[in-house]
Every structure is written in structure tokens, then in C-alpha cells.
């Protein structure tokens, strides 16, 4: 009986374990552990209480203060300072200061820090994003991070795997975001609870890494432990380019794939060739329906950014829709590149100018308003359309504000029209 890619990675990281099966508990060695400015302060406190004078590996602890930086208030500044001081004291290489910093799940792959076959935990639920590289990556809590910083390991239950087979070539304006919103709307927000979601099928050849990151990013919105795309040529060329550019401490990796006779709890097939762009209505990511189903839904704010859709191809798409257009006078457009590299590239390619000329804003990398942090909080009764990942009650501000989720093309078109719209409506 064969193993899935998730099982193989868990097995190879569990010392003294000869075989594993879904439901087993393992204490797995982590290649990388990650925290941000919201979750690390608790982890640091726990770590210090254990009384260790060093972290398990100073190159494998990653601290990215992306949530509230540039510090939105004094308390946030104090939290971020904790990370900086800790990084200095424990000689953490991968701490990122403003100006270099980006949204963690865009930044780390971009720099070649996470590699195929890795086992990574992160005190952030969207850590599952990194599964797009053929790694096992899952969100945990702060105490898990504190423990991992000390011992270099994490307790994990081996998940069952749902195989998601994608077939067909997506149409224009349809990308990874639409595919994952479509899948979550079918599975429900707990449809993959505790499970791995493994993506396969001929559609993958049409999906670049940015699309794959969007897909794996939202696996957690179906309740999944991890999303994973077995590595192929697209993965390889992305990773090799990142290693060449940034020369991370590890330059080699071992890509893993599922066995032909691997066992899945379920296989689901989705033909995406006829899929329209999907918009998820408040207040669950599973409330997705085709964009054409929304008539006269007014929006007060449009956000393009986040670990889901703040990468360069996302900004390129949004810019292509906005070029030569004006944002509706009733709408605030907030564009937030996910990383400093994306920011620089967007300036170089002229996207930034398109956003600003259209009457939008172009901000410094941050999680921003996605989690209701800063840079675009909604007042009572306001409606936002965002390329982010969650539309829960009060997610972006007031408990009586509303968030719709979409891809960057729909977001850009809606900013121009003032209502949820498709680029062909312009």
C-alpha cells in the first residue's frame, strides 16, 4: 500500500517511525517554524519560560512582523519590538524589518526559504499556503511555535487525504482564487476538517505558482490541515529562480510525490473549463456563486492584496483591468502588494502608476485590513469586496460591515463600477 505526499513527508520527518497511517500521532521534526507579530509574542514568552539559551536552529526560525506593521499603535509597536529583540538575542537570521518585510506566506516562498519536501509549521492559519510548493505546511498556535523553537518538533496527527482532481483549462479572468472558492462552496467550511487536500489533474499545467498559492492558501477555509500540490516543472523553475536570486541557506531539496497506489479518503473531480469568476458573499467563504449572480451589490471599498492575492500576477491582472479607467467616486480602492519585491516590480512595470492614476491607493506591504488590522477598516454598514480569504462577521472592521471575496480582476472591475462587476462590464 502506497503513501500520499503528505504521509511521505510526515513519515520522513518522524524519527524512529517506520510506517504511518491516518489517525496516528507523530512527533515530527520541523524544517521551519514561523511566527508573526500577533502570534510570536506568546510563543516567545512560552519559549523563555522553558529556560533554553538557544533556539533549536537559528536559521530555521522565521519571524515576520506582517500583521500590524507599520505599527498601527503603541501596543502593536511593543509587540513587534518583542520580535526584533528576540531575533537579535537569539541570532535569528530570518527576521524581516519593514522595507524588507512582506506578508509571510508570499515572502518566504519568494526568497526560496521554504522548499519542496519540507515540513513547516506556522503560528498563522494560512501557513497551508506553502503546500503549493509540494511541502507539508500547516497552521498551529503560539504554544506550538514556542515548543518548536525549543525542540525543533511538533505533535501532529496524520491526516486522511482528499484528492481534488482539476480538469480543463480555466477561462480568461478565472484563476486559482475562483477554483478554490468553487471547491470550498462545494465542500463547506468544515468539509475537509482535519484532512489534507491534495490537488491533481491536467488543470495544474495552466496554473502558475501564484494561482497555486491562492488555492493552497484557502485550504484552511474548508477546515483542512494542509493543501498540497505535488511538485512539477512549474514548481521547480519557481524554486530554482528563488534560490538563484536570494541564495538561501539551503539550496537543495528532495521533491516528493504521491505513490500510484496511495490511499485517499475521497476523490473529487472538478471540471473548471466552464467556471465563471466566483464571488463569496458574507459571512462564510463557502457562500460562493458566479459573479453574474450578483446584481447591483454596491461596494464602499475594494481591497487588492493579502497572502491570497497580493502577488505580482494579481497586481498585473488588477492593473490590466484598471488601465485608463477611474475608480468610482463612491469607492475607496486599497492596493497592497504582498512583499517588497512585488512592490518594486509593480512600480517598475507601471502597475503602481495605473492604480494611483485611477484614483486608488498603493500601500506598503502588510496584512493590512484583511484581518481588521489597519489600512482600511470598515465602519458600521460598509461593504467591501476583497481579494482576501475570509469574510467572517466583522472580519474587516465593524461587526455590522460586510465582506465579499473575489479574484483581483473582479475586484478591479468592481472598483470602477461601484458595484460587484466583471471586467467585461466595463
Amino acid at each position, binding site marked *: 500500500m502506497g503513501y500520499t505526499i503528505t504521509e511521505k513527508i510526515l513519515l520522513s520527518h518522524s524519527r524512529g517511525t517506520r510506517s504511518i497511517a491516518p489517525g496516528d*500521532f507523530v512527533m515530527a521534526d520541523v524544517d521551519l517554524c514561523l511566527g508573526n507579530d*500577533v*502570534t510570536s*509574542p*506568546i510563543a516567545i*514568552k*512560552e519559549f523563555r*519560560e*522553558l*529556560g*533554553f539559551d538557544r533556539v533549536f536552529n537559528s536559521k530555521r526560525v522565521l519571524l515576520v512582523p506582517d*500583521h*500590524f506593521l507599520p505599527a*498601527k*499603535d503603541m*501596543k*502593536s509597536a511593543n*509587540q513587534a519590538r518583542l520580535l526584533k529583540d528576540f531575533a537579535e538575542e537569539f541570532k535569528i537570521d530570518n527576521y524581516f524589518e519593514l522595507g524588507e518585510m512582506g506578508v509571510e506566506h508570499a515572502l518566504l516562498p519568494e526568497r526560496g526559504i521554504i522548499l519542496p519536501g519540507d515540513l513547516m509549521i*506556522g*503560528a*498563522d*492559519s494560512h*501557513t497551508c499556503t506553502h503546500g503549493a510548493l509540494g511541502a507539508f505546511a500547516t*497552521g*498551529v*498556535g*503560539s*504554544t*506550538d511555535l*514556542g*515548543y518548536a523553537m*525549543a*525542540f525543533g518538533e511538533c*505533535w501532529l*496527527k496524520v491526516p486522511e487525504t482528499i484528492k481534488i482532481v482539476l480538469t480543463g483549462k480555466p477561462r480568461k479572468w478565472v484563476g486559482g482564487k475562483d477554483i478554490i472558492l468553487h471547491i470550498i462552496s462545494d465542500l463547506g*467550511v*468544515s468539509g475537509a*476538517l*482535519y484532512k489534507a487536500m491534495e490537488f491533481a489533474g491536467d488543470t495544474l499545467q495552466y496554473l502558475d505558482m501564484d494561482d497555486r498559492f491562492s488555492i493552497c492558501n484557502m485550504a484552511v477555509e474548508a*477546515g483542512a*490541515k494542509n493543501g498540497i500540490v505535488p511538485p512539477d516543472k512549474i514548481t521547480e523553475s519557481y524554486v530554482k529562480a528563488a534560490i538563484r536570486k536570494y541564495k538561501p541557506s539551503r539550496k537543495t531539496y528532495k521533491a516528493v510525490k504521491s505513490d500510484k497506489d496511495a490511499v485517499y479518503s475521497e476523490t473529487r473531480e472538478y471540471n473548471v473549463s466552464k467556471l465563471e469568476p466566483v464571488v463569496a458573499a458574507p459571512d*462564510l467563504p463557502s457562500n460562493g456563486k458566479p459573479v453574474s449572480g450578483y446584481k447591483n451589490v454596491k461596494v464602499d471599498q475594494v481591497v487588492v492584496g493579502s497572502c491570497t492575492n497580493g502577488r505580482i500576477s494579481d497586481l498585473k491582472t488588477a492593473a490590466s483591468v484598471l488601465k485608463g479607467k477611474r475608480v468610482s467616486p463612491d469607492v475607496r480602492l486599497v492596493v497592497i502588494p504582498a512583499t517588497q519585491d512585488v512592490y518594486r516590480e509593480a512600480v517598475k512595470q507601471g502597475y503602481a502608476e495605473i492604480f494611483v492614476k485611477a484614483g486608488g491607493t498603493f500601500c506598503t506591504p502588510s496584512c493590512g485590513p484583511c*484581518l*481588521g*488590522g489597519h489600512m482600511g477598516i470598515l465602519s458600521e454598514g460598509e461593504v467591501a469586496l476583497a481579494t482576501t480569504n*475570509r469574510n*467572517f*462577521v*466583522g*472580519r474587516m472592521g465593524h*461587526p455590522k460591515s460586510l465582506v465579499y471575496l473575489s479574484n483581483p480582476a473582479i475586484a478591479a472591475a468592481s472598483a470602477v463600477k461601484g458595484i460587484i462587476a466583471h471586467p467585461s462590464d466595463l
Partner: protein
Amino acid sequence: MKFKGKVHKFGDNVNTDEIIPARYLNTSDPEELAKHCMEDADPEFVEKAVEGDIIFGGENFGCGSSREHAPIAIKAFGVSCVVAKSFARIFYRNAINIGLPIFTSEDAVRDIKTGDKVEVDAVKGQIKKVGRKGSFNVEVFPKFIKEIVASGGLMGYAAKKARRVKQ
């Protein structure tokens, strides 16, 4: 160990943004977080609830963000335990790791309502309404989880391990 308290019942998919909204995440002080426990699910929760009370949830309780601030807010407020039909996985591990008692029981959640007084027997794995006959069984924790729970959470488990490592 037994927990006895009044029930505050919530629906399915209660997410961690509702349990502790992001506007309060600029601190990790448990006392501060406790003041805003469940605020966006029920703004009056902290007024209505008292120490020892029990939260009941439906499916997928604690979904969304990994913020440990969510179980910390619940624990620091003094909620004695959380019972749900199912828990989102990161909330589940966070609760286990920090020593917030959680129990899974579909039947108990179906039958028990807000305002009911219940008794949760953690050792027997049973939930019953006070003054009523009959009880509901809770799902038994796997052996590995029991070990962490018995250590008072992951850091209790870690402290034992740290002593071994240092020896």
C-alpha cells in the same frame, strides 16, 4: 474533575474573529483579552456570563485564524470548559496545548440549551443536566492527547521533556 455551570450556546462555525476580534490582538495579556471574550458573537457575553459557566458550540467551533488569544480569552474569563459538536483543528490543538478543557459531543449539544445548568465529568467523559437523569457521552481523547492534557498542556509536557534534554 467535574465542571458545573450555566450553558451559553452558540451556533455552527463560531470563528476566532468572533471569539476575540483582531482589534484586540495588539496585546496578549490574558486579563485584557478576557474583557472581550466572545464579543463579536455576543457583545453581552461578558455581562451575562460568570466564572465557571460553560460554552456550547455547534460544528467547527473556533474556525479561522490560528490566534491562541481565542482559547486564552475564554480560559482567562473563567469559562470552565467548551463543549461542541466538532472543533476546528487549530482551535482544538490550542485548547489542548494551553489546558482549556474541551469536549466533543453531538448529542449533548443537540439537547442542551442556553441557560441549562450542566455538569461535565471529565474523568467519566459524561455530560448531564443538573437535576435530570441520564447523561451524554463525550468523545474520548486519543492516548497522545491525554498525555498532554495530564501534563496541564504542552508547556507542562515540554517542561518534563526539557528536564530530560538538559540532564
